[in-house]
């Protein structure tokens, strides 16, 4: 299965700043996703990162707050903008081959704390 490297693994940021998270995969993948996992909560899909075009955002998530890039089939970034304490969470990069039922593979996540 794909090996996913996510950076940084954790960060502490001040309110009003932004954090960019990088996701690097060791092989070309069809689908890349960004999830958020708040303490005690389920994984919530933020968006699907589309190669060469704008990401597809889920309800409740907008491009201005969570801009995403995917310049090629092995790399994506998620930026969390204009940070507030409510953005404190774990952000996870995930990849899949797009087949129905096929498993997702996850990076180890970025733990963000906003002060």
């Amino acid at each position, binding site marked *: 299965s794909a090996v996913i490297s996510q950076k940084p693994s954790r960060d502490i940021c001040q309110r009003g700043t932004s954090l960019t998270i990088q996701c690097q995969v060791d092989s070309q993948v069809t689908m890349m996703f960004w999830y958020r996992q708040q303490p005690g909560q389920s*994984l919530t899909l933020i968006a699907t990162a589309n190669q060469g075009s704008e990401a597809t955002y889920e309800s409740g998530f907008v491009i201005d707050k969570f801009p995403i890039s995917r310049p090629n089939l092995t790399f994506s970034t998620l930026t969390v903008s204009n940070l507030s304490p409510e953005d404190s969470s774990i952000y*996870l990069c*995930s990849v*899949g081959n797009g087949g129905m*039922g096929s498993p997702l593979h*996850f*990076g180890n*996540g970025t733990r963000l704390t906003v002060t």
Partner: protein
Amino acid sequence: SQKIEQNSEALNIQEGKTATLTCNYTNYSPAYLQWYRQDPGRGPVFLLLIRENEKEKRKERLKVTFDTTLKQSLFHITASQPADSATYLCALLTSGGSYIPTFGRGTSLIVHP
């Protein structure tokens, strides 16, 4: 509204016993159901997939059942070991073309030596 329910309370069992975790869902018609394991500070790791027309799936010490009438999946770990301690997430994929699973919040399993 659609819901995936997993017991929020941790399951504590003794080593060697069988752990049984439950995933209930409402207002879904899942075509597939997946189970993942998540350790602290790590991303989820895929364990098993079961299709709607399958009643049971096994992999080594793991067994998953899927009852679409009860709208429930059970996840069993036999001969449990302390190394099995982790959070276990179920995830549903519905028929209709979406290939992105929706996750439950997971149940923590603690196996005591």
